[in-house]
């Protein structure tokens, strides 16, 4: 019991104080409602102030990268679903992009647009899930149900399209397996047009809410320089004011033809990361509407390029990346000419963004740690692989 009492008022610099008491070590997770999975953070707290926070990861390690080496190229796609399991489409996309790059394949235009639709739907659903959990972490329980109402529609649309709601397995090397089902596009358009007013609803609850602002402004600042040094990408980087989005910086598919903006913040704190993600929801909506228009105007077309029956990329290595909802998701593929990759390395944005957590959390309170974990938007499937 002696290590439990009297922890307030200890001096952070020295391990021992006058009374011979140290900071309290607090195990935050792996079973904790706010670590969004099996993340364990070893906290040293002085009262409630965090002296150090050390993420301890690996509880969800499944050896996925090693598993990749034992599977043929098409068989790998379902495994990528399980990385960031709330954004399966972008995982599929990044992987097939890498293989296609090595094969130098041409993707039909219609397939490109459908891929972008799937990506952006996935981004919306992932951001909605983020908003739900980040709000609930700070005690606001109602946004959770509002965002899940919309996310449900997206998952239903996914189910209509490919039969799965979460682990989509929706892309193939060279294009897609399925064309859109009849009437699907109209459903998507109706939902997308409605989405704007729904986002307004979330903002009504949070954006100008005094408590929400008090809890998020100035919390977990990670400035542009430190973001770049850590390799942080995605909304945390853009909230720091750095305009980097793979969709614009290294355009893939048809993104260069689409009209959208990259929202950036300037204060690099939790509130700006929230604003950036909300703005990204609106931008994704813009992209979806444009894609709906194009697909309605071009209702037929190939959805799969000229793909060899057995996929055997030439020996060599290639890196391809997409802008996943969490940041830059890359696949580094080393091929030896066989029908299985020699090595397939994932660049998971969650894992890299999480590394900045100790720096963001230092000096804040335990309650802020929850806000910071929420705002990094990690998925442990991707962190641990």
């Amino acid at each position: 019991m002696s290590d439990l009492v009297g922890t307030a008022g200890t001096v952070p610099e020295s391990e021992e104080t006058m009374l011979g008491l140290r900071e309290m070590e607090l195990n935050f997770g792996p079973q904790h409602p706010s670590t969004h999975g099996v993340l364990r953070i070893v906290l040293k707290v002085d009262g409630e102030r965090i002296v150090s926070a050390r993420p301890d990861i690996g509880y969800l390690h499944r050896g996925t990268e090693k598993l990749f080496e034992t599977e043929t190229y098409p068989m790998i796609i379902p495994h990528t679903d399980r990385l960031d399991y709330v954004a399966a489409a972008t995982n599929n996309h990044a992987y097939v992009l890498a293989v296609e790059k090595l094969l130098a394949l041409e993707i039909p235009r219609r397939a490109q647009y459908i891929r972008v639709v799937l990506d952006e739907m996935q981004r919306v659903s992932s951001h909605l899930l983020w908003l739900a959990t980040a709000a609930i972490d700070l005690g606001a329980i109602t946004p959770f149900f509002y965002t899940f109402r919309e996310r449900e529609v997206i998952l239903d649309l996914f189910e209509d399209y490919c039969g799965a709601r979460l682990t989509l397995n929706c892309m193939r090397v060279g294009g897609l397996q399925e064309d859109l089902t009849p009437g699907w596009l109209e459903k998507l358009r109706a939902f997308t047009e409605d989405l704007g007013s729904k986002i307004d609803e979330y903002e009504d609850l949070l954006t100008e809410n005094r408590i929400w602002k008090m809890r998020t402004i100035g919390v977990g600042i990670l400035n542009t320089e430190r973001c770049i040094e850590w390799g942080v990408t995605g909304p945390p980087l853009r909230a720091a004011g750095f305009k980097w989005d793979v969709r614009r910086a290294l355009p893939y598919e048809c993104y260069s033809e689409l009209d959208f903006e990259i929202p950036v913040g300037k204060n690099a704190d939790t509130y700006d990361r929230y604003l950036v993600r909300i703005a990204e929801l609106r931008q994704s909506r813009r992209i979806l509407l444009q894609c709906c228009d194009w697909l309605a105007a071009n209702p037929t077309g190939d959805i799969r390029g000229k793909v060899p029956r057995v996929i055997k990329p030439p020996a060599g290595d290639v890196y391809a990346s997409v802008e996943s909802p969490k940041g830059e998701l890359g696949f580094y593929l080393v091929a030896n000419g066989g029908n299985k990759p020699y090595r397939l390395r994932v660049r998971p944005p969650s894992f890299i963004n999480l590394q900045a957590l100790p720096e963001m959390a230092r000096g804040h309170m335990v309650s802020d740690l929850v806000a910071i974990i929420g705002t990094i938007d990690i998925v442990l499937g991707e962190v641990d692989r």
Partner: protein
Amino acid sequence: MEISESLMTYVLIPAVKAVVVVILVATAAGVMTYIERRLLAFLQVRKGPNRVGPEGILQFVADVVKLLTKEDVVPAKAQHFVHFLAPVLVMVPGLAVFAVLPWGPEFTMRIPGLGKITTAWYAADLNVALLLLLAISSVGIYGIILGGWASNSKYALLGGLRSAAQLISYEVPMGFAIVSAILMARSLSLVEIVEAQRTHHMWFILPGLVSFFLYFVSGVAETNRIPFDLPEAESELVAGFHTEYSGFRWAIFFLTEYANMITISAVATALFFGGWLRPFPNVAALGFLDVIPGVIWYVLKVACFLFVYIWFRGTFPRYRFDQLMALGWKTLIPISLVNLVVVALAALGGWRGLRILGAVLWIAAVGAVLIVTRLNAARKPRATPLIPAPVGAQKAEA
């Protein structure tokens, strides 16, 4: 057998009342959990419990039965006695304060075999009711602190420490707000305070607008409810001080929280909203409202406050601990001190002084609301603008 009058007045009737109060309060707290879940569901586009009994009304019974039959887990190395004592320390004061809550006026009824009995809708009318209320409800804090400490869990300990600081801090503005009501009514008895609002021809919410606001905000903090639910902040401390409680001991914490909500609402009703009095108690034209008995008026008013509690929960995020302390010490306590002086000066002027104060406060409040609404309307319509990138951040585009 002839029952002597003193035995009747001092033993039998109070005993019956005590039993009735305890049963009613425990049931009300249970029903409250059901109502909260349904109302929250209504706010959150979902259905809520609707399976057990008609419209799910028996859900709380099922929950209680489940909790009663659950295993009572005590963590290893916990302080067994204190761990056992904590829920008791929380529950007993939570129920005891109901003795002085005035749910209705005196009434006379005829009981076969006993004759006419004149009694009232409260267990006791003490001349120090409010002091008793403050004193007893403070004891409940011990239960929370000890429960957190005895659990041998760091999360529970943090929750206990938080609640110690929070509850003690918010007792201060709450006490001052109550004192201002005492000044207005010139009595510590809750029954007399309600009666004073009849003789003053107004509910004390008129001169006590600020006092009521302070009282209710502190009351929400005292009951550990969102946005002040830090002692049990689920997303931070798992469940706070009752993390290591299970089964019916946990249920006792849970139900007492609801009982405390009812207490806070009931006291607010008695102090500021005329207790069992109908609106405008002295306007004869509204006499038809007397059809509704005083108890019903009281329950209706309490229900409004309870709804506000639930509404808060559906709307607000949670404060951070230091922000909570800052709000208490830097905002509420100074306001409550100034308010106390102002109310005391007005009370010196008797009814007239209180009426002038009420008029000034309400005109100021309505004016402030109008100004704020207009300012908000003048703002740009909703839609997060893209935040312009600072100079030098465009490197990536080039």
